């Protein structure tokens, strides 16, 4: 399997606090890699630096053999690095359809066509319906997204990220606040995505992580302390210590 994105000795510090400390990670195509670790381990900061939400203090992010360190978020999205957020971030005042449509429109193009109707972009519409269909949000297409249930809002955010045609997708705690049934649904969905793209999952639900991940990276205090298959991680002493030791 080819490496699609890697970080080279990535650092991020806030004042004196090192949130990401010399991380070298590799993400492979069509692989589901989970990032786990105790609270404050720097998981979210790590993906914030990769996806362009925060500037790196030093080190590099390499995407398909191209240095993309500290590029603005919208450039990274266009390259194929998409993400969702821990706290749901969608266009609250717009309908479900419009939320996804905008993302598809940005990917396919046509945002500068000022004299045509926005509903008239054929490829964009087809793609939007396709994604809504895939995520079973089709029936809710016309619902204002702020009226959606929490679980559907999380799903909508995944839909928007998918509309950007990601090559690698970062999901920051997609199951947060979801019911067991919704969690199961989204877990299957995430697993299904790896047929075509790389997925990076930051997740607290260990059950989900162990079940669907191909590989797991464990962060603690900004450093990678273990990497490997779910089985090897489960048996790893360092990991147990990180979770229980200084708890």
């Amino acid at each position, binding site marked *: 399997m080819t490496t699609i994105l890697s970080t080279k000795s990535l650092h991020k510090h806030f004042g004196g606090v090192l949130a990401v400390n010399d991380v070298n990670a590799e993400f492979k195509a069509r692989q589901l890699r989970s990032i786990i670790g105790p609270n404050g381990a720097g998981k979210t900061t790590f993906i914030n630096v990769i996806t362009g939400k925060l500037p790196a203090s030093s080190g590099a992010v390499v995407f398909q053999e191209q240095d993309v360190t500290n590029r603005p978020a919208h450039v990274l999205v266009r390259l194929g690095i998409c993400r969702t957020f821990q706290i749901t971030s969608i*266009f609250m*005042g717009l309908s479900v359809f419009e939320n996804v449509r905008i993302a598809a429109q940005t990917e396919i193009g046509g*945002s500068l066509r000022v004299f045509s109707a926005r509903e008239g972009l054929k490829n964009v*519409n087809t793609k939007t319906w396709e994604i809504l269909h895939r995520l079973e949000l089709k029936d809710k297409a016309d619902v204002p997204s702020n009226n959606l249930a929490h679980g559907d809002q999380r799903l909508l955010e995944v839909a928007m990220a998918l509309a950007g045609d990601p090559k690698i997708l970062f999901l920051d705690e997609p199951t947060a606040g979801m019911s067991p049934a919704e969690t199961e649904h989204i877990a299957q969905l995430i697993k299904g995505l790896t047929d075509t793209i790389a997925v990076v999952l930051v997740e607290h639900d260990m059950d989900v992580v162990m079940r669907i991940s191909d590989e797991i990276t464990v962060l603690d205090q900004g450093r990678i302390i273990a990497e490997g298959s779910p089985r090897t991680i489960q048996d790893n002493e360092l990991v147990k210590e990180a979770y229980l030791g200084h708890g």
Partner: protein
Amino acid sequence: MSEMVTKRRSTHPMKIVALLIVVTCLTLFPFVVTNRFYISLVNEMLIYGLLAMSLDVLLGYTGLLSFMHNAYLGLGAYVVGLFLIHVAPSSLWLALLAGVVVTSVIALPVGWVQVRTGGLAFALLTLAFGMMFYTIVWKWYSLTGGDDGLMGVPHPDIQVLGITLGSSGNPTTMYLLSLCIVFICFLLTWRIIHSPFGAVLEAIRENEERASFVGINVRRYKLYGWMYACMLAGVSGGLFILYRGYIGPTTMSAFAGAGVLMMVLVGGMGSLWGPIVGAGIFIFMQDYISTMTEHWELFVGLVVIMLVLFLPRGFIGLGDYLTRFRKE
């Protein structure tokens, strides 16, 4: 696949009929009511309606608050006035074009600086730049006439395809010119707001961070929105000086800026015709109340406070924008 066919949000035919009726009534107005005073009053409503609509492109559609959008009306008006005085006293279209171009050229670097920020910082920046333009216009006596304002602006003839339609000094002719241009700008803005480009602006209004994480270059699109709003303001400025033949710095003051903001609030943000109606109500009240009392400021302040507290959606735009600006 039947559900894959997009429901085209086609415009309701009644809306088009209503628009045509309104425009017809406005066109007939100066021939029915021949009183020059009322013709000028409605003309002013149209011009400020255009300005309020352009502010709404920023406030209601892009989510950017500009306190002193009137500064760009002022710039447009001064440029057109100076062009008519010093360059070509009879070239109306050239003067209007110069007004729009120069306003845009000034608005570009201002916008480039402003779009680096959002929310509070953006609003404060509009105030800083607006006050700067106001001070310059007020103090540059030799060019602008300072406190006395720009006087003696000639009234060129309105010519289309070589045919003279009348003098812009004639209230009725000038009124019809304003109506025509405001109508065109309205249609144009309506088209743009409902285009894919307009969808991008709405996305920025709803959630700037998400917008950049679906791949939108937020700063660039904010700048486009800003430039369009300033161009429209420049057009309204050109009409303003043609209709008045005079402009003073008070038109560019912070107080006048609050007036424009109030027109948008009265009419309701996020609907193009709301602000135009708001401008009409505002100009009418201003005219009516200022003849009765000199305490116009007291009144403006009170109405703005009441609107924000009790009627944040405005009188007209009672539609769908309840959810806007509720980022928290």
